[in-house]
C-alpha cells in the first residue's frame, strides 16, 4: 500500500524560518517598499519559495542592496531584479513590462514620481495576486 508519508503540511516549519530577526528585517523592508502588509508578504513568500530560499532571504536581499539592478535607477526603484532574480516572487516578463512602461512614461510625460508610484502600485498588485 502506498502511503504519502512525506507530504506533510510544511507551512508551520516555513513560518518558523521567517520568524528570525534578520527575516523580520527583510520582510519589514519589503513591506514598506511595496506597501503590502507583513502577513501578506509572509504568506506569499511561503507559497512561492522553497525552504532553503526562505532561509537565504536576508543574504539575497543584502546582495541586491549592494549589487542588484546595476546602473538602472528606475529598475532599482521598482526592484526589478529584487523580485525576479534575488527573491523570485513575481513573473519575469510581467515585471519587465512594468519597468519598460514606466520608463516610457517618464520619457513621455516627464512626471518621474507619478510614474514610479504607479509602477510600484502595479508591482504591489502582482505580489498580491
Amino acid at each position: 500500500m502506498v502511503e504519502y508519508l512525506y507530504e506533510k503540511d510544511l507551512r508551520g516549519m516555513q513560518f518558523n524560518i521567517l520568524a528570525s530577526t534578520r527575516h523580520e528585517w527583510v520582510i519589514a523592508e519589503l513591506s514598506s517598499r511595496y506597501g503590502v502588509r507583513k502577513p501578506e508578504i509572509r504568506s506569499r513568500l511561503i507559497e512561492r519559495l522553497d525552504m532553503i530560499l526562505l532561509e537565504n532571504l536576508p543574504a539575497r536581499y543584502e546582495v541586491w542592496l549592494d549589487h542588484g539592478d546595476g546602473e538602472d535607477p528606475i529598475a532599482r526603484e521598482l526592484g526589478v531584479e529584487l523580485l525576479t532574480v534575488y527573491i523570485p516572487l513575481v513573473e519575469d516578463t510581467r515585471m519587465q513590462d512594468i519597468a519598460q512602461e514606466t520608463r516610457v512614461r517618464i520619457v513621455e510625460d516627464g512626471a518621474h514620481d507619478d510614474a514610479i508610484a504607479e509602477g510600484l502600485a502595479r508591482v504591489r498588485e502582482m505580489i498580491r495576486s
Partner: protein
Amino acid sequence: MKKTVDVSLPIGPLHPCFKEPARIRCETKGERVISAEMDLGYVKKGIERIMRGRPWQEVMFLAERVCGICSVIHNMVCIETLEKLSGIDVPERAAYLRVIVNELDRIQSHLLANFSYCYTIEHETLSMYLLNLRETAMDMLELITGARVTCAYMVPGGVRFDLRDEDRLTLEEALDHMEKELDRYVGMFKNGPLIAQRSKGVGIISRDDVIEAHGVGPVARASGIPESDRRLEHPTYRKLGFTPLSYEDGDNYARIMIRFDEVYQSIGLIRRCLENMVPGPIRGGGTVTAGEATHAGEAPRGELTYYVKTDEYGRIIDIAIRTPSIMNIESCAHYMLEGVSSAADITSTFISADPCIACAER
C-alpha cells in the same frame, strides 16, 4: 512557465549518503535534473529563540551547539563579537592559540567533507584513509582543548588552557605526519581516472551565480572568488600573512581540491603560529557590557556572521546568526543541481557543497 517533467524524484530525508536529514525534491527529465527544491525542518531546534534573555555564559555554550562539526568557529565568532562590543583585548599568545585551534578544526572539517564526498562516489579506500587522518586532527584538538567536539576553548579575553611545551612537540609531529599522509591521498585523488570522471565538469556553478546566491567559503573560492575569505580581515591572520586560494572551474573536483589545498594551508598557518608564539599570559580578563555588534569570521564552510545585542549585565537581548551552509546549500540546490545528468551525481554534487543542515536550520 510550462515544464516537461518526467519524474519528481525525492531524495531523503534519510539517505545512506547524507550525514543529516534533508530532502531534495528533483524534477527530472529522464535522469537529467531540471530543477531541485529543498525541504528542511528536520533538525530545527530554535537555538536563537532560546538564546534571547540568557547571560552570555550560557549563550556561549549554546552557540557551540549550533553545529557540532565546526563548533570551534562558532565559539570563536561568538566570543569575538562579545569582545568587540565590550572592547576587550586578547593577549598575543591567546590570539595565536585561537588560530591554532581554529585551523585544527578547519582541517578536521575539510577532511570530513572530503571523506563524505569520496564515500558518496564510492571510493571507500580513500574515504577511510581520510577519516583516519581526521582522527589525528581530532587527537590534537583534544590534546589542546580537552575535548573532541564542543570544547568551549575560548572565553572573552583569552583562552582557557595554555599549550605546554611537550604538547607542542606532539603537535608538530602530528602536523608532519598529516602532511606526509595527505600528499599520498591527494595524489590518489588527483590521479584516479574514475574520480576525475565522476567529478570533473559535474555540478558546475559559475562566478556570477555564486555571487547571486551569495555562496561563500570553498564553494565561492572554487568558482574564482578568493576575496570571499573572511580570514583576510582577521588581525591575527593578517599578521601571519594569510593569502586565500582559489580555483576557477567551479565543479565538484575544484571544490574538493580547494579543501585539500586549504588543509595544507592550515598546516602551514599552525606552523607559523608556533614559530611566532612567545610565552606570555593567555587570559586577560574583562567584563561583557552593554552594546551591539556584528562580526564575521571564516568557518570551514564560509562566512559566519553573528549579530549580538547585550544589556549591561551581559545578557543577550537579541541575536541573529547567519551560517554559511544556508547560502551554500541554496547555491547547490538551485544552481549546481540544474543540468546534472544522473541520479548518482545528485547526491555527490550535494555532498561536494559540504552541506551542514544543523547549521542551516539551527
